């Protein structure tokens, strides 16, 4: 008998906690408080009514579940209305160049002009690139540089990449401005999977990681 009573209490406790929270939600949303309080007292008084309480609790849960979906729909409708309202006045506005945006515009224009002269591929750290550079003093021959991109500095028209390569047993790093008119061609030969934005660790690594055919 005592063990049975304990078992009943153990079962009763978690059910009480869960239904109470759901009922509180129901309270906040719609259902009046009086019937709930009326139903609570017989649950505590008579354990024989446990079965009925379970069925009622399930029904209450379902009822509460319906309510938030309605609220969500209303909220979404409100958002749609707000979006439509904000869109309307934007269209008749005239575009005006602000003084603070001029630097960005100038850089963008310079990059676009450079792209017209010579298209630039999307260069990332870890790319193995081949660059053909025209030295101003020696315009007849193009110097070819090949290496792995170990870093990239984004600075508008003055974006630069640092290329590393082992030549004759010596590590060589050269910085190239990507949009310079002296660079006649940039080709991405292949790409290595890297997990850093700066590959400075290659300086301390074995030479074969910076060697290319």
């Amino acid at each position, binding site marked *: 008998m005592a063990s049975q009573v304990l078992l009943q209490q153990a079962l009763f406790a978690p059910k009480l906690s869960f239904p109470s929270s759901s009922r509180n939600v129901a309270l906040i949303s719609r259902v009046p408080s009086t019937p709930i309080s009326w139903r609570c007292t017989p649950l505590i008084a008579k354990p024989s009514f446990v079965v009925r309480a379970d069925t009622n609790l399930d029904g209450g849960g379902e009822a509460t579940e319906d309510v938030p979906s309605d609220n969500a729909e209303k909220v979404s409708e409100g958002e749609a209305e707000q979006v439509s309202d904000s869109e309307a006045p934007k269209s008749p506005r005239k575009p005006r*160049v602000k*003084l*603070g945006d*001029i*630097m960005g*515009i*100038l*850089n963008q224009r*310079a990059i676009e002009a*450079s792209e017209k002269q010579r298209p630039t591929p999307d260069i990332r750290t870890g790319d193995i690139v081949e660059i053909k550079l*025209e030295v*101003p003093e020696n315009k007849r021959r193009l110097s070819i540089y090949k290496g792995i991109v170990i870093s990239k500095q984004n*600075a*508008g*028209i*003055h974006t630069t990449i640092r290329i590393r390569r082992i030549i004759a047993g010596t590590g060589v790093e050269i910085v190239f*401005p990507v*949009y*310079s*008119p*002296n660079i006649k061609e940039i080709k991405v030969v292949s790409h290595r999977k890297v997990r850093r934005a700066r590959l400075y660790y290659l300086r301390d690594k074995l030479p074969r990681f910076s060697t290319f055919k």
Partner: protein
Amino acid sequence: MSILSVPSPTQRCSISISRLPLPLPLPFQLQVRRRAKGGKVVMSMEAGIGVMGTKLGMMSYFESDGEVVPVTVVGFKEGNIVTQIKTEATDGYDAVQVGYRRVRDRKLTKPEMGHLHKVGAIPMRHLQEFRLQAIDGFDLNQRLLFDETFKEGDLVDVSGTTIGKGFQGGIKRHNFKRGPMTHGSKSHRQLGSIGAGTTPGRVYKGKKMPGRMGGTKRKIRKLKIVKIDKDLNVLMIKGALPGKPGNLLRITPAKIVGKNIPKN
């Protein structure tokens, strides 16, 4: 005409003219008159009318031959309008006063508003004078356009307020060197001695000492105009200019003695 009418200027002028071997054109005679009158050379004259602008920032500019030029971009807000013309007769010197940067009426004082309203100009915050050798060809409420005043390749002087750095020591302010770091020394960043002992008995004037650094007016001379953009209304000047982006800049033609500034 005016010289001849007044007797004493006539005498001075005649004296100076007699010294010179050859007859000179009229502008030079005017310069001579100015020199003789004051007895000193006026050094604050400008080589030509200038404009005021707003510093926007720095960027790189690639020349067609691949050379990279560091340029400063200068933008122009509404303004650069002649607000007053001062003459020798009325004010004692020749100058053109220019206003820059339109603001709301409430931002200006009543005397300023009255001054601008007299010539029918818009309310502008910055009023600056350009002392010129000849103020012909300027009208009140005339708008000065930077692309008419300057062209690509011109040399300009640019002045502005430098970045303020607060109260700084000698190392930062005057590039002093540090004191001993070891051997028990305690004077790492200090001045050391500020002069001799009994004999002068004082610190010389002009001794470099800690003090407030930056926030002063600075002129950078003979910078080249790399590019003029009429679409965005900007000027690209080679090199660095004083101050932060957003600073007021005063851009005038470069003074080159013997070329656009008289050699005395």
